[in-house]
């Protein structure tokens, strides 16, 4: 796996042991790539970025369910590109001299003036749609890469203590959702046992009611279990302090709102702008920190931020930085003109950006190998629960 050139100092060897990288590192990297993609319309560069993301994902993802979703993001990207091009063909104006084919134009009533359906299709038009769609698709694929590489639940665990309750709510919602799907399937099959005839409305009634009742039962059972296992234990905080934190957070948020308004509205007095915003922010953060101190808990095997994390995140940021620099140096290369259509080119800077983006495929420690999971029926409906 690792190249023979790696120095064999103990620290390096340990850093290269298979382990799960901090989810934050992957998100920094992915967001860096997405930023880079957003800066350019150069299809060559975009395609290279997608390829880089895909390579890193295939080399460094685990075998968890979310890791397999990357293919879905690729598919989604393809759909985005196709839709963009299709829209340009259907609705696009007639700009461009290199007409590919002429579709019969559909006449529209007078109130829809300015919109044209079909008509001549120009190369410029199609290319514009393609570049645009490709940029959006690349950003999507970058986010998909982050999703495939980082466990979403572990990321939520890394949120600061003040947002703990919010994080838990999201976690519970995440785990209840698949159960809901499962109970819909179960009840629908039970409905078939009763003949399942009837109109749509009755079918809805017959499925929705048991499923909702089921979901409520499950949520209550989960809440009871969490309560009896100590969730929400609070350090002894006097009622006064509790009221203070609440008031601080509330006042702070009001301050932030007012400050933002003041900043955006030029006619409001000066003190309502930046000073208000900063005061509000400080108050809210203080309140949240106070609230976070009330939450008394510890973390089992927290994800540590070590050297590989720093390098992976740095690769993403560097790739974004290089592309931004390239835009300043050669704006034309990063936004190849569509009229007249020219072959897109790469500059050394952009090539360097892609090279940096792909480095984590080797730099990041490999994921832990799959546990010897005996495939059990993935809870077939009507099967063992």
């Amino acid at each position, binding site marked *: 796996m690792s190249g023979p050139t790696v120095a064999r100092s103990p620290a390096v060897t340990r850093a290269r042991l298979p382990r799960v990288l901090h989810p934050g590192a992957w998100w920094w990297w992915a967001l860096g790539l997405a930023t880079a993609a957003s800066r350019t319309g150069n299809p060559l560069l975009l395609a290279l970025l997608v390829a880089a993301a895909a390579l890193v994902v295939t080399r460094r993802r685990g075998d968890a369910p979310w890791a397999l979703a990357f293919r879905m993001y690729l598919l989604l990207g393809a759909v985005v590109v196709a839709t963009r091009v299709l829209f340009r063909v259907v609705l696009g104006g007639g700009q461009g001299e290199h007409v590919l084919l002429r579709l019969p134009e559909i006449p529209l009533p007078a109130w829809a003036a300015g919109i044209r359906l079909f008509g001549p299709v120009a190369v410029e038009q199609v290319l514009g749609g393609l570049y645009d769609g490709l940029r959006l698709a690349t950003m999507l694929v970058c986010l998909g890469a982050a999703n495939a590489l980082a466990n979403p639940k572990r990321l939520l665990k890394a949120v600061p203590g003040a947002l703990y309750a919010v994080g838990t709510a999201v976690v519970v919602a995440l785990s209840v959702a698949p159960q809901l799907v499962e109970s819909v399937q179960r009840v629908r099959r039970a409905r078939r*046992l009763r003949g399942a*005839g009837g109109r749509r409305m009755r079918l809805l009634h017959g499925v929705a009611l048991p499923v909702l009742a089921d979901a409520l039962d499950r949520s209550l059972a989960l809440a009871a279990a969490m309560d009896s296992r100590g969730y929400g234990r609070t350090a002894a905080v006097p009622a006064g302090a509790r009221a203070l934190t609440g008031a601080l957070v509330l006042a702070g948020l009001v301050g932030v709102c007012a400050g933002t308004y003041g900043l955006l509205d030029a006619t409001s007095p000066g003190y309502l702008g930046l000073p208000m915003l900063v005061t509000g922010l400080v108050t809210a953060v203080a309140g949240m920190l106070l609230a976070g101190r009330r939450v008394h808990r510890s973390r089992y095997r927290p994800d540590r931020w070590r050297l590989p994390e720093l390098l992976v995140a740095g690769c993403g940021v560097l790739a974004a930085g290089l592309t931004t620099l390239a835009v300043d140096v050669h704006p034309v290369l990063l936004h190849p003109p569509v009229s007249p259509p020219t072959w897109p080119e790469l500059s050394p800077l952009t090539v360097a950006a892609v090279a940096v983006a792909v480095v984590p495929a080797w730099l990041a420690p490999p994921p832990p190998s799959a546990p010897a999971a005996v495939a059990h029926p993935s809870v077939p409906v009507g099967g063992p629960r």
Partner: protein
Amino acid sequence: MIEFHRVSVRYAGSPEPMLREVTLSIAEGELCLVVGRTGAGKSTLLRAVNGLVPHFTGGTLSGTVTVAGRDTRHHPPRDLADVVGVVGQDPLAGFVTDTVEEELAYGMEQLALPAPVMRKRVEETLDLLGIADLRHRPLRTLSGGQQQRVAIGAVLTCQPRVLVLDEPTSALDPTAAEDVLAVVTRLVHDLGVTVLVAEHRMERVVQYADRLVGLTGDGRVVDGTPAEVLAGIDLVPPLIGLGRLAGWSPLPLSVRDARRHAGDLRARLAGAPAPAPPPAPVGPPVLTARDVVVRYPGTVAVAGVDLDLYPGEVVALMGRNGSGKSSLLWAVQGSGPRQGGTVRVTGPDGAVDPAAVPAQRARRLVGLVPQTPGDLLYLETVAAECAQADRESGADPGTCRRLLDDLTGGLPADRHPRDLSEGQRLALALAVQIVTTPPVVLLDEPTRGLDYRAKEQFAAVVRGLAAAGRCVVLATHDVELVATVAHRVVVLAEGEIVAAGPAAEVMLASPAFAPQVAKVLAPQPWLTVEQVRRALAVTG
């Protein structure tokens, strides 16, 4: 360790209190079994221990409950998490995280234990419960017995001094239940944990219990040593029934105790004629299945099963959790997936494959009551369900209600199906499914959550259906039920039939499937107390 002092619990909207003036004292290191009929308040008693009643469920509690010196009045469940560990009926519903290891750590994270302590305790607990090889497995892919052990482990990591288990083995096959109970007894003996456990299938646990708390049904409790309490309450596990019949004193609690008493009973029975084998099926089979294959992505649930069902017989389908019982039932009914093989049901208009006809017709051929009978019910009242069942199957109005009254008398017509007891809900679902008079009736795990009395009632219903010429198939783990009603037993493993034959033959062949009476009287061929009673009546 646990003190109840004049505790009464009354839920809002109910006229009668659930618990009435309960005074109990459970000492450290005791294994205490809570028994009582469905709805007698077992869960209420258990949940009062860590304050879920009334902090979480609502209702009014008078009197005091103290655990390790802490009054639940001032300590909500979360503040008792370091003293009391609670494991609910369905472990999967109580899991908060995704994987075994994270689940074990969750409780400790809430208690803010330092990371090195957590690492050490997780490893210890994995070893203690014998689940070290499961540590990275997603919780949803575990079998029922494994889930139950993980759920116990997840509360054990907080090192509670009291462990509360609500029906820990009700959904498990006999072997998995043994595993879980072995873990529980080990905790009591090695760590001195105080355990409070509720269980319908008392026969599994009673031999390990130091003390029995019996709920009489009117909110009061009787407590004492198992033999004392069992002599006075109306719940009779087979061993106790046999002991009473033979006049043994003290009543035996384990197969070992009973066997030591049983020498003379075996001698008396030696001359009695063996129980009559079930009548050989007459006529052609009503359902013929050949080479049934069911597969799900990544797994084969049913791997080529042949099955013949004859009118008037009761067939028990047994095998461990995940052996393909449910999948086979659903495939035979035609609603579940079936990738290969043929199914033929002889109905009023010739032999047809239920999967090939509309659902409306398939249910006239084969009726199936699923594992959670409540899934079949979706209307607001019992009466509405019955009327709808009559309508959708074209029966005369009132047919379903009549069937229901035959199954279980006097269900209030305006009751919501969700408010019925497990047994009543099962009866309603069964009535709804047999309105169409299908020649074959399939029941998936019907006796989960039924007490002995309800189970006897259910057995009578099954016999009635068979006597009326239907074929009844039960997929179940309950060997005692199978011993009472089944003519034939089919054992599945990994989706294949590993044993099939007359009930007595299959059940006597292996200790895992033998009922308690058979274990006591082996090598004689008696399966139930009733058979022994009849034999004794003959020999005198």
